[in-house]
């Protein structure tokens, strides 16, 4: 049994960042903790949120204990790779067994496959291994910032992370059983489940064309280490470009299907209105007349060098830094405005570590008069998509990519 040491006081919670000289107020003292969380988040969240430490994790922003939903503090996004122990945690259901690599089995088959097999962890690791650096972002990242609010896990900015994933190709595993011509979807299930029998198990499907892409993996390593338990040990699906809902953790069953999978988590959840978002990558076997499954991430960016309300000196150089990402087309440009959107300048992009990865950006400017300075960042990807200035409303609170702004106090 793993025990958790909850951090109810904040000393040391942000220890890694003390001395960085960058103002990130600490969390955990309720509303008195200051502007660490966006004031746009629901009041009930801001009043009760704490930093809490899951086994194997650093203190993260606890949104719910059970099932565990923990968000990564923004400070960890100053690098393009997110550390495993700071990587966000997201579960839908509360029965989360601790599967050992030894007892783990992966069943592969389904009515869309020619045969069926069962793979052990060793079998999986013996297959040709591939790596991809990719962002795993929850569909509902920034849901808590929706106005008006929508019900759900009220994420701020940190329901995401970027890691170097290593594993076998899903395509190679499917080749072991062979796909029938009629196969249209691949259905994924993990070891976690519900407490009440009638609660629909968390099962997802993906289109065959996406399943057999070279970058779609059954990953068993994350940043050179075994997957943390809360990120899907011993193996999970990695589906670069698409939102986290399809990245099945603790994956135990992969079935090829000749019909669209109609379970609750496909049919009723993770849906977006048709025609509202500029998406290229589509999952048409699941379309209805009015909505479609969420697929690729929309282009987005985040300022990580300064928290909202941070103090800077008048007449001094300020280095604005952050990250940008999209659904895999790659970042073409990030523009930064030091004056609330009146003037925009092109930021310097950091190293390109892959089209599915976070891309670092930097922009230096000299502050002028004392007072408030609103700094904004706007990313554009290589197919010309940019972030929105206004929220694209949708019932479940997905795809929030409104231009991020932080207010600096120039003194």
């Amino acid at each position, binding site marked *: *049994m*793993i*025990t*958790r040491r*909850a951090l*109810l006081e904040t000393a040391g919670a942000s220890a890694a960042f003390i001395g960085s000289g960058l103002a990130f107020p600490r969390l955990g003292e309720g509303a008195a903790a200051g502007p660490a969380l966006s004031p746009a988040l*629901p*009041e*009930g*969240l801001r*009043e*009760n*949120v*704490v930093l*809490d430490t899951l086994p194997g994790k650093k203190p993260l922003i*606890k*949104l*719910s*204990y*059970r*099932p565990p939903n923990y968000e990564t503090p923004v400070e960890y996004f100053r690098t393009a790779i997110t550390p495993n122990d700071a990587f966000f945690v997201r579960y839908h*259901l*509360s029965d989360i067994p601790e599967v050992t690599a030894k007892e783990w089995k992966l069943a592969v088959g389904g009515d869309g496959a020619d045969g069926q097999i069962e793979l052990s962890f060793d079998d999986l690791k013996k297959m040709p291994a591939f790596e991809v650096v990719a962002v795993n972002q929850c569909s509902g990242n920034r849901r*808590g910032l929706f106005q*008006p*609010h929508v*019900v*759900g*896990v*009220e994420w701020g900015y940190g329901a995401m992370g970027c890691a170097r994933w290593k594993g076998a190709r899903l395509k190679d595993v499917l080749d072991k059983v062979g796909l029938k011509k009629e196969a249209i979807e691949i259905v994924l299930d993990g070891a976690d489940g*519900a*407490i*009440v*029998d*009638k*609660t*629909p198990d968390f099962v997802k499907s993906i289109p065959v064309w996406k399943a057999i892409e070279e970058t779609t993996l059954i990953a068993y390593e994350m940043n050179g280490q075994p997957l943390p338990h809360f990120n899907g040990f011993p193996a999970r699906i990695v589906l670069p470009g698409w939102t986290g809902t399809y990245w099945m953790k603790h994956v135990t069953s992969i079935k090829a299907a000749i019909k669209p999978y109609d379970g*609750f988590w496909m049919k*009723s959840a993770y849906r977006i209105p048709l025609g509202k978002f500029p998406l290229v990558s589509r999952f048409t076997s699941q379309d209805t007349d009015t909505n479609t499954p969420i697929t690729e991430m929309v282009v987005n960016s985040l300022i990580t060098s300064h928290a909202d309300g941070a103090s800077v000196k008048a007449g001094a150089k300020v280095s604005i830094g952050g990250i940008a990402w999209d659904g895999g087309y790659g970042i073409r440009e990030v523009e930064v405005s030091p004056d609330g959107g009146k003037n925009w300048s092109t930021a310097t992009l950091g190293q390109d570590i892959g089209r599915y990865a976070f891309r670092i950006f930097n922009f230096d400017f000299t502050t002028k008069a004392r007072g408030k300075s609103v700094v904004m960042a706007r990313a554009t990807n290589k197919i010309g998509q940019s972030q929105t200035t206004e929220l694209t409303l949708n019932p479940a609170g997905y795809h929030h990519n409104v231009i991020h702004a932080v207010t600096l106090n120039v003194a």
Partner: protein
Amino acid sequence: MRYLAVAFLALIAAPVAADEQPVKLKPGSGLDKVEIHCSVCHSLDYIQMNSPFPNAALWEAEVKKMIGPFGAPISDADAKVILEYLKTNYGS
């Protein structure tokens, strides 16, 4: 049977999970039903973070969602008590 076992645990010992910190909701009529039923499947911070913005219709939809698609075995009478509690203490 699993539900019964967990519900029993919820009655005798909160929180349900050994490594979970107790979440204290606002005192009020119906809190006992909320604690017994809602905490079977999820910690009660779900209610806190989704507040106080839901109006009466939104809270009603949530309670119905838990009983309908999510299959929570809650009687009509208890569901009514839970809804009143949520509207009164965590609604807008």
